[in-house]
Structures are given as structure tokens and as C-alpha cells.
């Protein structure tokens, strides 16, 4: 494919990126606000030699994903928060069995049926493993349609690099907003190295088994040590966007769609002479703690803005705890805010310091 700039929704960017990344199996179940993803892929997957299955539920979809992932092919599902709840079982099994896959959560408000509006209240669920048994998944947080495209492509590389489920955590805004996206072939030629572990029928080699059960004395402990070492290795891959943080007195930390709105608010504050910067984590697990700590060590102050009652703020406080504390401004899920709405808490924070 040639690179091409087209006007699409974030959800459509996810679907195009999956195809371009060589995704061969998609399993999904309808849920707002991500329906454009399965709708588009129901056409694109068969056109590109792949399989599309509308599953009976998110439980079914995620366990189909486990089966396809076990075969070493690039496989994906997409859903929204309530669907992620149902997928936690399979996610836990995939973490335990070291099966790579990509899971997109265009999250919505909760708890319960909640709303179909934007929300960042799935941060804890995404970054703490979600299911029983202490598993972790790699978590990417796009804030624009372009990042939806780029991060979904990259998510497959990460999934196979670490043999792990990778979660792409967007929300109703990132999924539904429409903007120009540069669609392009993968930056790196995929090299999944799945040949050494994937299921394909044993042929002339020894049989293979992918499992998460370890009953022998000490076996589960060893397995969990291996997984913990993997989570630790992931810590080498954190990423964040820093805007005007070098000379900032106040660093605003925000992720995803709110991070994007906070970016505009920070620019407004700059324009009126305030030394404010933006720190936008692009990976939520691993959390870019070291970079935050470096900024804290320089004596900066912090304001965390999220569309929830305060979740990522815990990770920010942990990162900067030896040097500073963080203020928090929360927007309740379902409330739409613009840059002016976020400028006020930033300016209040600046005034409080004086």
C-alpha cells in the first residue's frame, strides 16, 4: 500500500491499521462506541485474506482471540468497557499462557451500563491487570485518530515482542472523532518470531502445549517469576509526549483524549504568559515514571487532569513521591469539556502557588 491521507474516524483508523499490520483474524461483538471497527473489518478482513467472526458475546470473542493467538497469527478484538469486563477471563488466560493479541477498548462511562459517552474510568482496569491472578498487559493510549492508526500497528509488534496481550485504551472521543489520518504501511517489517512456539500441528517436531495451569510444587511460582520479569522488561518501553516542560513551573499530566484537550489548554496558558507544560503518557503500562520523576526533581509542580474521579493521579504521585505531590482536577465521565474548561483549573493551580 502507498501512504495516503484520508479523513476517517478513530475507529476506522483502528480497522485500517489492523489490516495494514497484517492482522489475519478479528473477533468482535457489537457495542457502542466502537461499532465502526467490526463493521469495517467485516468487509476488509475477507478482502485481505483474513477471518472475521461476529462472536456470540465478548466472552466468546476473547476466547476465539486466545485460540487464534495461540496459532501465532496476528489477531485482534475491539470493544468498550462492559465488553472488557467479559473479556477479562480470556485476557488472564492469554497473559498466563503468553499468547499475543491486540485488544482495543474504546471506553465509555460506567459503572454498569453507564453511558456511551467518553470516559477514562477504565484506567485502573487497564493498568492493574483487570482480572484475577496479577497479570499485566501492555497498554497504549492514543489521543488522536493518527495515534489510533500508528498505535494499533505498533501494538501487534509489541504483542509478539513480549508474547502478551496489548491493550489500546481509547474512548468515545478518540473512536468517534473524524480527522485526517496518514495511512501507511508498517514502519518495521513484522518479525513475529512465532515459529518457535505457535501451534500449527506438530508435523515432525515435538508436540507443543500453551497453558496457564501449573500444579506441581513451585511450578506456578517459577511461572509467575518469569511473567514478572517480562513486566519488568516492558518498563524499558515507556513513552510520553512532553510539550513545553523544560521551563515549566507547572506540568499538566493527562492522557488520551483529555490529554489532547489539556494540550490546547496548556497552549492557551502559555499564550497568556504562564510557564505551563504538558506531560502526556502514551503508554499507561509501562507508566513513564522515570521521566516524570526527572521533572519533579527539577522542582516542578504537577496537576493531573483525567475524565474520572482520579486514577492515573496515583501513578503520577508514585512517580514523583520523593520530590513533590500532584494536584488533581477531574471531569466526570459523560461531560464534554473544551480547552477553556481545562484552562481554569490550570490557572487556579498557578495562582495557588503564588
Amino acid at each position, binding site marked *: 500500500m502507498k501512504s495516503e491521507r484520508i479523513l476517517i474516524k478513530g475507529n476506522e483508523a483502528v480497522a485500517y491499521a489492523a489490516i495494514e499490520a497484517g492482522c*489475519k*483474524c478479528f*473477533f468482535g461483538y457489537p457495542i457502542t462506541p466502537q461499532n465502526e471497527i467490526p463493521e469495517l473489518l467485516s468487509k476488509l478482513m475477507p478482502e485481505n485474506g483474513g*477471518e472475521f*467472526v461476529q*462472536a*456470540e*458475546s465478548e*466472552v*466468546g*470473542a476473547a*476466547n*476465539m*482471540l*486466545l*485460540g*487464534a*493467538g*495461540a*496459532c501465532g*497469527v496476528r*489477531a485482534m478484538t475491539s470493544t468498550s468497557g462492559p465488553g472488557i469486563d467479559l473479556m477479562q*477471563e*480470556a485476557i488472564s*488466560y492469554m497473559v498466563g*499462557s503468553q499468547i499475543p493479541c491486540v485488544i482495543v477498548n474504546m471506553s465509555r462511562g460506567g459503572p454498569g451500563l453507564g453511558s456511551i459517552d467518553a470516559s477514562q474510568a477504565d484506567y485502573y482496569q487497564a493498568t492493574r491487570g483487570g482480572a484475577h491472578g496479577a497479570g499485566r498487559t501492555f497498554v497504549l493510549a492514543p489521543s488522536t485518530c493518527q495515534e489510533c492508526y500508528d498505535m494499533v500497528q505498533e501494538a501487534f509488534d509489541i504483542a509478539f515482542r513480549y508474547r502478551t496481550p496489548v491493550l489500546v485504551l481509547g474512548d468515545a472521543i478518540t473512536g468517534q472523532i473524524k480527522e485526517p489520518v496518514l495511512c501507511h504501511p508498517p514502519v518495521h517489517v513484522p518479525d513475529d518470531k512465532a515459529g518457535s512456539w505457535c*501451534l*500449527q*500441528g*506438530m*508435523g*515432525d517436531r515435538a*508436540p*507443543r*502445549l*500453551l*497453558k*496457564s*495451569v501449573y500444579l506441581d510444587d513451585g511450578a506456578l511460582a517459577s511461572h509467575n517469576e518469569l511473567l514478572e520479569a517480562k513486566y519488568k522488561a516492558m518498563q524499558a518501553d515507556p513513552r510520553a509526549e512532553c510539550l513545553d516542560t523544560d521551563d515549566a513551573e507547572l506540568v499538566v499530566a493527562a492522557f488520551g483524549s483529555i490529554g489532547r484537550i489539556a494540550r490546547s489548554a496548556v497552549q492557551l496558558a502559555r499564550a497568556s504568559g504562564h510557564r505551563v507544560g504538558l506531560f502526556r503518557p502514551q503508554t499507561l503500562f509501562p507508566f513513564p515514571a522515570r521521566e516524570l520523576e526527572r521533572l519533579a526533581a527539577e522542582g516542578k509542580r504537577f496537576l493531573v487532569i483525567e475524565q474520572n474521579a482520579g486514577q492515573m493521579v496515583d501513578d503520577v504521585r508514585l512517580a514523583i513521591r520523593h520530590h513533590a505531590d500532584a494536584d488533581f482536577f477531574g471531569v466526570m465521565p459523560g461531560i464534554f469539556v473544551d480547552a477553556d474548561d481545562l484552562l481554569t483549573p490550570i490557572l487556579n493551580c498557578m495562582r495557588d502557588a503564588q
Partner: protein
Amino acid sequence: MNLHSEERLVFAAPSTLTDRQTHYCPGCHHGIATRLVAEVLEELGCIRQTIGVASVGCSVFTYNYILGDWVEAAHGRACATATGVKRARPDCTVFTYQGDGDLAAIGLNESLQAANRGERITVIFINNTLYGMTGGQMAPTSLIGQKTTTSPAGRSFRKEGAPIKMCELLAQLEGVAYAARCALDSVAHVNAAKRAIRKAFEVQHRDLGFGFVELLSGCPTNLHMTPLEANRRISEALIPCFPLGVYRDVTATEKAGA
């Protein structure tokens, strides 16, 4: 005189079966079912292109006994996982091996939906009317009046409903190419079961649809019976509730025409 030259091998374990002791209790029918599947996979010559999907329950360690590539599914999800495997590896033979709690309680939706989609997979269903691995609790297939650790007064129709009859349910679904119920309590029944298992794989190989075999089995440990009593229970109590037979066979008309 060399006595060994007189030896003639008339019976051996199939090459598809591993040489290891099973974890099954004395008198359990899993050993017979496992061997039948292994024999069929050997005779069909497809073991090297086969991927098995293990379920949760006593059946979980089937991967230790039948050779080949295996993936472990979550409890009840074997048919969904097998769907993913088959879609990713359409050239492989894909099968699940599941008990009654796994397939017909927690996994009923995944089982029926995969069958209804006509997934080209083979499902081996062990029906022993209770949860074996967890200690003999009531299963969806437990008989009316059957005492278990969670139905100490016996299963009641009023509160727990009647036993689920999977073959009868699946026979309604057009994606099912073959569904049969067999028993493992006699030589004749075991031979019939093997033919049914073979058929359930053949419909997959011929791209006809979902293949299903239910095997009525015993669990002496949790039934608190001797192996012989548990075996006898199959013909005396199980078969009257779960009649044996072929419930759906899309190839039946072929035979009639031939």
C-alpha cells in the same frame, strides 16, 4: 529355539497415545474415551496436523495423553477457543474434549453458538452426570433424584430442572453435520463409540460442519460406587434418560442414495 519369533503383536497402544500413567481414578471411563480418540486420530493419519483444545475439569490433562499440539481453554470456552484455532489454521484438524459441566453448563452458549455457526471442529463430550474434578457436584446432566454434594436431597425437577440433553439440542442446529450419543459401558458400545468419533472427525475433514459425540460415562469415585456398579448405572439409569443413537447426520442421505 527362539521363543520371541513365535510372538505376534495383536494389540498395542496407538502411536498417538503417550506412554504415561493417567491421573484418572480406577474405573473411570476417560481412559477409554481418550484411547478411542487417539485410535481414530491414528487411523485417520492426521495427528501431525491436529490441534487439540483442552477444557477444565478432569479432562484438562488430556494433552498429557494424546500427542499433538494443544492449547488450554478457559472453563467452558473450548468451542470458542477452537473456533479461533480453526479460523487461524483452517488446514488443521481441530477438536475439543470436554466434560458435562464445562460444555453444558458454563460453556453452553459457546458450545451451541459454535455448533450453530457450523464451525469445522470436532467435539468429544464426556457425560458422567457430575463435576468430577471438583468433587462430585450436581451437573446440568445430573439425573432427577441424583444425590450429589450440591444436591444432597437429590436433583429436583421443580428447583433444578431436568437434565440437559445435548444431542437433542444440537440436532436442531443446521450447522451440525453429525451428532451422536454413545456409551462406554460394553464392548459393543465402545466399538460403536469409536465409529461415531471417527465420523465426527470425518465431517470436519469433509468440510461439512460441526461434529459432536456424547459419551455416557461413569465416575465411581464421586458416585460412591464400585467400577462395576458405575458401569452398570450407564445401562440401567443413564441410557433410559439419554437414549443412544445418531441425532443428526448430514451424510445419511448420501448413504441412502448410494
